[in-house]
C-alpha cells in the first residue's frame, strides 16, 4: 500500500500529462463527455437559480409579515397605552407601531380601491373601527406564538397576521418551492446519472486499452488515476460554458428586471457574490461527478 501511494505521488505530473493527452487523442469521445457535462450543468444551473430565488422570495415575504392587532372600539386611551407597553415586552417582537382608528379606516378605504370611496362618509364619529398596532416579529417563525399570546390580552378585538393576499402569496410560493425542490433533486440526480453514463460509455470503449495496461504490469491505481483526472478535467471543461451562461445570463436578467420579479415584494438575489458562489458550486459538482463517474466505470475493468 505504502509503495503504491508513493508511486502515485511521484508519478502525479505524469498522470496529469497522460490525462490531458487522452482527452486530446480521444477526440469525439471527450467532446461528447464534455458536452454531456455542459448540458447537465446548464439544466442544474437554471433550475438552481430559480430555486434559490424562490426560496429567497419566500423567506423575504415571510419575514415581512406583520401582526395586525385591532383593539376594541370601546377601549380607552389608558387601555391602549397599557397594551402598547405589554406588546413591546413580548419576546421576539422586533417593533410595535401604533395606528389610530382614523388611519385604520383610511387604510381600509385605500385597500378596497374604488369601491372604498363609498365608505369615505363614515369617517369621524361614525368610524366603526378601533385603534390598532402593527407588530414585526424577529423572524417569521415566531408569528404564531406572538399572535396567540396577544389574543389572550384584554380589550384586543382581533389579531391578524399577514393580509389575506400576502398569506396566499406565501402559500403559493411555498407550493412552487416544494414542487420545485422535488423537481430539482430529481433532475439533478438524473443529470448526474447522465454524466456518469456518458463517461461510462467512453471508458467502456477503451476497455481493450485498460486490459493492455494491466497486461504490461500497470497497477490498478496507476491505470485509474489518469482516468480519474480525465474525469475531473472533463467536468471542469464542461462547466465553463454553464458558468459563463450563469454569469452573463443572471446579470442580464437582474438588470433587465431591475432586480425584481412581478412585484417589488419578490426580489432577485444580488448577482454578487451569488454568481461566483454558484459558479464554483457548478465547477465542483461537474468535476466530482466526473471523478466518481470515471472511478466507478474503470473499476469494472480492473476485475480480471
Amino acid at each position, binding site marked *: 500500500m505504502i509503495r503504491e501511494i508513493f508511486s502515485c505521488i511521484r508519478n502525479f505530473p505524469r498522470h496529469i500529462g497522460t490525462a490531458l493527452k487522452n482527452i486530446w487523442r480521444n477526440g469525439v469521445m471527450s467532446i461528447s463527455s464534455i458536452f454531456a457535462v455542459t448540458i447537465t450543468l446548464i439544466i442544474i444551473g437554471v433550475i438552481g437559480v430559480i430555486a434559490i430565488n424562490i426560496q429567497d422570495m419566500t423567506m423575504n415575504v415571510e419575514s415581512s409579515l406583520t401582526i395586525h392587532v385591532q383593539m376594541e372600539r370601546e377601549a380607552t386611551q389608558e387601555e391602549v397605552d397599557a397594551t402598547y407597553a405589554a406588546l413591546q415586552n413580548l419576546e421576539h417582537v422586533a417593533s410595535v407601531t401604533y395606528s389610530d382608528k382614523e388611519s385604520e379606516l383610511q387604510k381600509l378605504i385605500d385597500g378596497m380601491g374604488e369601491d372604498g370611496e363609498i365608505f369615505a362618509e363614515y369617517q369621524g364619529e361614525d368610524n366603526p373601527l378601533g385603534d390598532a398596532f402593527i407588530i414585526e416579529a424577529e423572524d417569521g417563525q415566531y408569528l404564531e406564538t406572538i399572535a396567540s399570546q396577544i389574543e389572550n390580552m384584554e380589550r384586543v378585538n382581533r389579531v391578524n397576521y399577514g393580509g389575506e393576499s400576502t398569506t396566499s402569496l406565501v402559500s403559493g410560493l411555498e407550493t412552487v418551492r416544494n414542487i420545485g425542490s422535488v423537481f430539482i433533486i430529481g433532475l439533478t440526480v438524473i443529470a448526474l446519472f447522465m454524466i456518469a453514463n456518458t463517461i461510462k460509455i467512453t471508458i467502456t470503449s477503451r476497455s481493450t486499452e485498460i486490459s*493492455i*495496461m494491466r497486461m504490461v*504490469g500497470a497497477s490498478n491505481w496507476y491505470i485509474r488515476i489518469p482516468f480519474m483526472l480525465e474525469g475531473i478535467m472533463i467536468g471542469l471543461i464542461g462547466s465553463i460554458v454553464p458558468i459563463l451562461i450563469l454569469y452573463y445570463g443572471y446579470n442580464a436578467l437582474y438588470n433587465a428586471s431591475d432586480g425584481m420579479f412581478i412585484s417589488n415584494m419578490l426580489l432577485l438575489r444580488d448577482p454578487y457574490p451569488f454568481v461566483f458562489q454558484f459558479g464554483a458550486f457548478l465547477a465542483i459538482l461537474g468535476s466530482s461527478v466526473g471523478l466518481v463517474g470515471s472511478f466507478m466505470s474503470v473499476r469494472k475493468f480492473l476485475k*480480471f
Partner: protein
Amino acid sequence: MNKDWSDEYMIKLIGVTKVYKTGVRALSDINLTIEPGEFVYVIGPTGAGKSTFIKLLYREEVATSGKVFVAGIDVSKIKDRKVPYFRRNIGVVFQNFRLLPKKTVFENVSFALEVTDTPRKHIRSKVRRTLDLVGLADKANSFPHQLSGGQQQRVAIARAIVNEPKVLIADEPTGNLDPDTSTEILNVLERVNAQGTTVLVVTHDKYIVEKFKKRTILIDNGCITSDTSVGGYIYD
C-alpha cells in the same frame, strides 16, 4: 513475493487442464517443467492450444484444474489486484500485438517501464536502446496504425523485453516478418536469453526452429506429444 521460488524451475505445470466456457477442451492434463534460463520453442498445428498454454502462464486465462507456477508463484492464487505486479515478471509478445492504439511507439514501449516505477532518467535511454535493437528507432513517434504488420510486431517485442523480465513469452513473434528480420529478432531473443531470461517462443516457422536449435515442445490437440531437449521440427 518470491519466497517460495525454488531455483529448480521457472515454470511448472502440474496436471493442467483448460476447458473454455464454450466447452472446448483446449488443454488436457499438461505436466511440464522449464528451468530458469532455458530457451524453449512451443510448436504445433493451429488450434492445438499453444496460445491457451501461454495465456495460463501470464494469467489471462485461469486453469480449469491443475496447478501453474511461474517464478515460484502459484498463478491461480494471485488476487485480481495483484495480477499486474505478477505480470511485471513476464514479458509477453501477443499474437495480435495488443499495442495501445492512442500511444506512439515510444510511449507504448516506455509505458511498460513507467508502470514499474523505473526512474525517469533511465526510461528514455532504455527505450531508445530497445527500439534500436528491433530496428525501429525511426518510427518512435508513429502510432501503431501507421505501421506495417512487421513493424507492429517488433514494437510488441520491444515492449516485452524493455524491462528485462524473468520470463519472456512470445506468441508467433516472426509471423509477420521476412526471414532476414526474423533472424535478427531471434538473435535479439538469444541475447535476452543469454542475460538469464527464460524464453518461450510459440512459432510455426520451420526456418527458425531449424536454424536456432533449442528445446522444442510439440503440442497437439491439447496434449504435449513431444518434448525434445535438442530442436528438430516434427512436421513432414
